């Protein structure tokens, strides 16, 4: 029973907290650019707006188009349930391991790509094609990262890296690789541009171009949650944190502070990367992800050498 409570709690946390990360990143970006920019809570306003709006569905679309938002959200939430957030042991650890995470993301992406083709719009097809291209290139790099991490613990269980491990060269390299992957997966610069308004340069946005209203809100939400999951993973790899010792309130507070700070650090770096590079041509993404793959290999070698 407690387990279910924890799961529900964790999921609610994810749903509630995920958008703020996006708001944070865009706030940081704007601040560095010396702009005022939108408020940190802007994603919530956006979601609320979408939820209260009606929606337009293409006449060409079939049931695939209608179920996709729900499938995407449910798969992302399932992934979220596999992540150890509160107690450093995934509440759903018996349902799957680190590898399953990859496949679950693939499920959502598969449907999203299909729904993009469903409306018969050429933008949708374009987005779908590009998204599948990028994501398929992500897979080998991700696999290498998982291997390098799990080599350190002798298991692919996510709960295994529960913070007792020391930071090693391997985990730093792995974290960098994962960071690159995250950039690609969360459609950020230099792979994709979330802020663009030109359909021809879109990847993720082109796929969801036909969505509006509540459906779009669900998809956006899923994207926020996915981003948060990936940030959590990076944080856990590169800034391992052990279980808190609840001896005093200050200790607890400092623990919580560190816990949040490390995620903010990652958000800041994401923002920094995004404002300091230009968007790449689609075909150069292969090189970019190839680099991530090589980093993964280096991480594995480091893990093999025990450093």
């Amino acid at each position: 029973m407690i387990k279910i409570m924890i799961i529900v709690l964790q999921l609610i946390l994810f749903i509630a907290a995920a958008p703020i990360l996006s708001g944070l990143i865009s706030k940081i970006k704007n601040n560095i650019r010396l702009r005022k920019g939108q408020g940190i809570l802007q994603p919530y306003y956006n979601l609320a707006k979408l939820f209260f709006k009606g929606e337009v569905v293409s006449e060409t679309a079939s049931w695939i188009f209608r179920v996709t938002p729900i499938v995407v959200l449910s798969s992302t939430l399932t992934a979220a349930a596999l992540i150890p957030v509160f107690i450093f042991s995934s509440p759903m650890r018996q349902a799957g391991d680190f590898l399953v995470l990859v496949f679950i993301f693939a499920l959502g992406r598969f449907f999203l790509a299909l729904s993009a083709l469903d409306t018969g719009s050429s933008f949708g097809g374009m987005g779908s094609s590009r998204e599948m291209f990028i994501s398929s290139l992500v897979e080998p790099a991700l696999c290498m990262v998982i291997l390098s991490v799990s080599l350190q613990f002798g298991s692919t269980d996510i709960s295994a890296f529960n913070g007792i491990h020391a930071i090693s060269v391997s985990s730093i390299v792995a974290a960098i690789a994962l960071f690159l992957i995250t950039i690609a997966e969360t459609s950020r610069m230099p792979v994709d541009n979330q802020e663009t308004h030109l359909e021809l340069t879109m990847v993720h946005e082109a796929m969801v171009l036909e969505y509006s209203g509540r459906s779009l809100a669900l998809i956006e939400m899923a994207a926020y949650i996915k981003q948060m999951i990936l940030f959590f993973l990076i944080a856990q790899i590169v800034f391992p944190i052990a279980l808190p010792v609840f001896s005093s309130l200050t200790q607890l507070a400092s623990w919580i502070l560190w816990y949040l700070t490390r995620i903010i650090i990652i958000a800041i770096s994401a923002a920094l990367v995004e404002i300091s590079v230009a968007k790449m041509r689609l075909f150069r993404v292969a090189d970019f992800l190839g680099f991530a793959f090589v980093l993964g290999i280096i991480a594995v070698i480091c893990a093999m050498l025990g450093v």
Partner: protein
Amino acid sequence: MMSTFLKQFLIFDPLSLFFLFVIFIISLPSAVYSFGYLKGEYTPAKITLAWFLLFAFVLSMALVVTVSNVFIFLVFWEIMSLVSYFLVVFDTRHEKSIQAGMIYIVMTHIGTAFLIAAFLVMYKYANSFDFFAIKNACQAMPLQTKNIVFLLLLIGFGTKAGIVPLHIWLPYAHPQAPSHISSVMSGVMIKTAIYGIIRFVIVMLGVNSSWWGILILVLAVISCLVGVIYALMEHDIKRLLAYHSVENIGIILLGVGLAMFFIRMNMPYLAVFSLMAGLYHLINHAIFKGLLFLCAGSVYKATGTRDIEKLGGLIKKMPQTSAYFLLGAMAISALPPLNGFVSEWLTLQAFFLGAFNVTGGAKLFFGICASLLALTSGLAAACFVKAFGITFLGQPRSHYAKDAKEVTLSMKAGMFFLSVLIIIFGLAAVKIMKLLAKVAGGAIGLDTGAMSFSINNFILSPQAGKDIYLSTPLLLLMLILLGAAGFCIYMLFGRKRVVIYRTWDCGYYKLDSRNEYTATAFSKPFRIAFSFFLMPYRRTQKIRESFYHIKSFTYETHTTLVFKKYIYDPAIALVFRLAGSMKRIQPGSIHLYLGYIFITLLLLIIFMRQF
């Protein structure tokens, strides 16, 4: 009399029974399906012939996996090839079928020649054709000989299995057969080659060198990638599926190759586990590829074309077929919680467990293999987004697709059966693993009674003490519950107005099927990214009315079939050139002919002492 005869020539160990099971579980729905498929497509006489051939085909496959005598194995092996050849050329009036059949039978015969050579060596040592006698004799075989036999067997069975670069026949032959046969061929027949590898290499020959496993792994990885990349470029739906068979055979062989490596490394537990992963993927591939071919057949039957560029929007015309195809596509793309996901996860897990347990460079090698497998599954997903999206979604691209109708009941029944199997094999993974443990243990020669691959009836656990778990039922439960939750959120904000309107067209107002994204366009990023291998080229042709006005402009893009262009075509051309130049020795001159006799005589007399 009969029973002793059976005992003498047949074998019913778990391995054989497993393959028998695979054969029948795919053949049955295919046969049901063929009721509807054949009707109207062929004359009654031909339908009878098709039934007869299907029966003969299934029977020969069943015998291939159950005989216990090398010679009889060879005979049924060839009969199987022959019958399937008949089925490939079933549409005798199509030039394409004939061509495909020829490539198929010739390639498979070349493979058989290698098998014969391998069996010759085995026979020489055992002095018997019997499996058990050969198995005993193989222990005394010198390593060098064993290596040769292994290579011969690998080439021989590899040809049938479609390992790159011996896969050349597969994309020709499978699409040309009637669809229910394609499903049996792709689903089951190429698996008999896997049976051969397991039976003859692992069971009988015994693994003695670690490079065997590594060689198979390398070939398997290449097969995976080449298969899926070619599939991405393909617009003929059945040929696309055929290339995916190359890919999936690669994945199966990853499990088999790993098992061989672990046997050599003396890690029985991992060997059994890897072989199980391979076998699991084998049966899964049989199921979903069978289903996909049946669906492709339905599409062909309903529309009359296999070119997906001409299809589109079929999800509204053929809701059931499209649902089955979607299920199959999800399974082959390894999406949870379906069966393809389970076996691919197991294969990856086998690599990871291997990487945990071996030392040195093998760790990295396994890692790279695993990540290439991951790349493969990513590409496969992309390919099936294309296949399903272009075929079933959007607007119809031609009149073929516009006039399509849902297929008949028997065809739907065949597809439904396999769809159910996809789900069962996804969810009942624990039960199936228990059965597979017996099969794999029997093949490797281990008692698997003490080995456990699960903690209860729902949760797989590949290695005790490692905290690695997988539970497809649990995942499904989560997905459903959370999906329901998502639906609740969706509904939370009350019923809102949903407007059905035209697709966003940037104000163009005449959006039709010609504006849709095509399969060629979809695969373009991949074509560019893998251009070093695919070597795409364009052909453009301008027809000018005058210097200033171009009347029409055609543009084609193709990819180069590397293996065909650089290996097979030159080899064939060489053979024909040699043969053609030989013609010169017989120009019709009787004097020359008499001269030959005379010269032969003189030469023989001169060199008499050499003989």
